[in-house]
């Protein structure tokens, strides 16, 4: 599938703030399921640099701004040719040992409820791939997709207790459930071309490490493994570690953000 992405993120600082700095992880991953045809990230007024590919295979770049800043607009545009690999991250070059992901973080700390859910899900689920599917299914069933009930700070444990949440909550909970069983898992960000179903063009899911297959994506929100409708950007321990845009600013003002994303099938244009 040929997917065309338009992704604009706007930040407004009131009053204007100094020391605005961002770390960007906004480039599609390089693996057998994705071929980047064109990709542009534009930020007016930014000084950019310090770019590199990290051990997890993500391209990272830094943007800073001189003086005080009132607005920052990050424009991402591009086209990616995708192939359905049933979630398997084949051909992805990375160096981080999977075990490095097995550690509890602020978002992925497993409450007793998560632990129970995880243990129950994998009981009788067979091989590691079967267990990973069972975990994703259990998490998707336990947390009903409901926008507006959780926010960016909601942890996996809180989301499970609420029984409602969005893709971020599903991904956190799935990661938490897997790592509490010592199964390596991580948070993944990207885009989704959705027609009907749960539509979040800016999307997040989880990857679970399956021996012999490597990293495999699981989208508990949609109860599928990422296919040709998905574009993968990057990964991390949780939503903060994997964030496509991670920023700080100095000052006591307020920061508001708006995001506008469309992911279209280029062949239907």
């Amino acid at each position, binding site marked *: 599938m040929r997917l065309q992405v338009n992704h604009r993120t706007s930040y407004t600082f009131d009053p204007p703030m100094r*020391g605005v*700095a*961002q*770390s960007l992880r906004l480039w599609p991953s390089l693996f057998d399921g994705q071929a980047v045809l064109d990709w542009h990230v534009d930020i007016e007024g930014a*000084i*950019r*640099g*310090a*770019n*590199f590919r*990290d*051990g*997890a295979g993500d391209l*990272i*770049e*830094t943007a*800073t701004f*001189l003086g005080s800043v009132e607005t920052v607009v990050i424009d991402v545009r591009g086209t990616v040719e995708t192939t359905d690999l049933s979630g398997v991250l084949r051909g992805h070059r990375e*160096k*981080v*040992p999977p*075990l*490095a*992901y*097995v*550690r509890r973080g602020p978002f992925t700390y497993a409450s007793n409820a998560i632990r129970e859910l995880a243990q129950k899900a994998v009981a009788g689920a067979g091989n590691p791939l079967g267990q990973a599917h069972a975990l994703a299914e259990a998490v998707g069933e336990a947390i009903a997709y409901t926008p507006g009930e959780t926010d960016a700070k909601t942890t996996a444990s809180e989301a499970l207790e609420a029984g409602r949440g969005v893709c971020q909550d599903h991904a956190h909970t799935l990661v938490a459930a897997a790592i509490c069983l010592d199964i390596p898992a991580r948070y993944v960000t990207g885009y989704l071309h959705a027609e009907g179903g749960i539509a979040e063009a800016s999307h997040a899911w989880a990857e679970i490490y399956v021996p012999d297959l490597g990293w495999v994506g699981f989208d508990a929100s949609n109860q599928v493994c990422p296919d040709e409708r998905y574009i993968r950007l990057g990964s991390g*321990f949780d939503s*903060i570690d994997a964030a496509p845009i*991670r*920023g*700080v600013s100095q000052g006591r003002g307020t920061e508001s953000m708006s995001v506008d994303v469309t992911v279209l099938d280029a062949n239907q244009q």
Partner: protein
Amino acid sequence: MLEKPIYFNEMGMDGAVRPPYAGLDTWAANMPEEFRNTKQSEAEALFRRIGITFAVYGEGGDPDRLIPFDMFPRIFAADEWRKLDLGVKQRAKALNAFLLDVYGRGEIVKAGKIPGRLVYQNEAYEKAVVGIKPPRGVYSHIVGVDLVRTGPDEFFVLEDNCRTPSGVSYMLENREIMMRMFPQLFRQNRIAPVENYPALLRRTLDSVAPEKCEGAPTVAILTPGHFNSAYYEHSFLADMMGVALVEGQDLFVKGDFCYMRTTEGPKKVDVIYRRIDDAYIDPLCFRPDSMLGVPGLMNVYRSGGVAIASAPGAGVADDKAIYTFVPEMIRFYLGEEPILNNVPTWQCGKPDDLKYVLENLKDLVVKEVHGSGGYGMLVGPRSTKEQIDIFYAKIVENPGNYIAQPTLALSTCPTFVEEGIAPRHVDLRPYCLVGENIELVPGGLTRVALTEGSLVVNSSQGGGVKDTWVMAE
């Protein structure tokens, strides 16, 4: 009943004085009490004047309390030091090889010499620097190796400090003050100098400047600020090396590099000797709420625009659970036998070890895997039954968090006390520098447990310090 252990007295046993201490026994014994008291107050006044104090975490009281200084030096003969010198350097080399390996191909794990979970699931293992090769492949540029002695030829390594070992300012100030107060001792004895440590540290830091640095590197020390217990040391080392002392807010990232604000405008920084923990170094990479760090610094570091000493992630080598495997690292990377021994260590995370530890708590020293400074530690033979019971419960609750070691018969060194001169237990922390070369100044920080019979030398637990002499060849 436990027999009272026999401790090795470094000055000598049964009245015979060992060579390095020759003359010091009469020097101390013939010192009139009044003179001694005068000298002691003089030393304290000097320490106050230079401002070297040690604030202690979590103890309240006077944060500007002086760490007690004992005037009786701790002395090594040249041949004793030769072995320590080789042993410490060997260790520093192996620890750095380990770090380069576990952030690279992980050969030691693949070879089955160290369990992957101990390394990769370790809190101190930083995923963010996997695959990043720091300049010259060095992660830990200053390795503080804590040593104890139990006999004439018996030394043990208690732990390694690969992140930001503190205390080197005491090594330098103790010497300075001894030389001012007792110049004749330094005329009568040939004592190897330690004063060149700041110059060596500077050279070490210069030598790890990134490839992108053209010309003479600009070095800065990054401190969390004046409320930090080791702030004095940060400013002292900056002064001695002639480099800037900066806080996070003094640095900023622009493009491919990191700059510091100066009165003459921004200046590119090539090497940062940081004295703040990984977690706080950059809110865009680690803890998002950190106000101490520099936003974007890790991206500049990882793209080769600046060197950071110690390199982020170095802490995985000095973890107490990893410590057990250092002899294995020495064999694996260097193909050598360890010159210095480890203390036998039981990992409470292992069921067999746990059983032994719980059964023998009263004879063991138990430490938290991530603890430091003598906090969260049990010295079995010196604890009440209640204290032991409390620890028993803590260990059972989270065994993986504890290791145990036998109570070592730490050597003693003569020390000035109320009643005159008496033996007190000591340890030693030499500071090994790793850059283009591996260097070790002859000396280190000797800590002394001032309370009679005490084996805990931590300054936070009432320990003092001594000047450490290495006799010149």
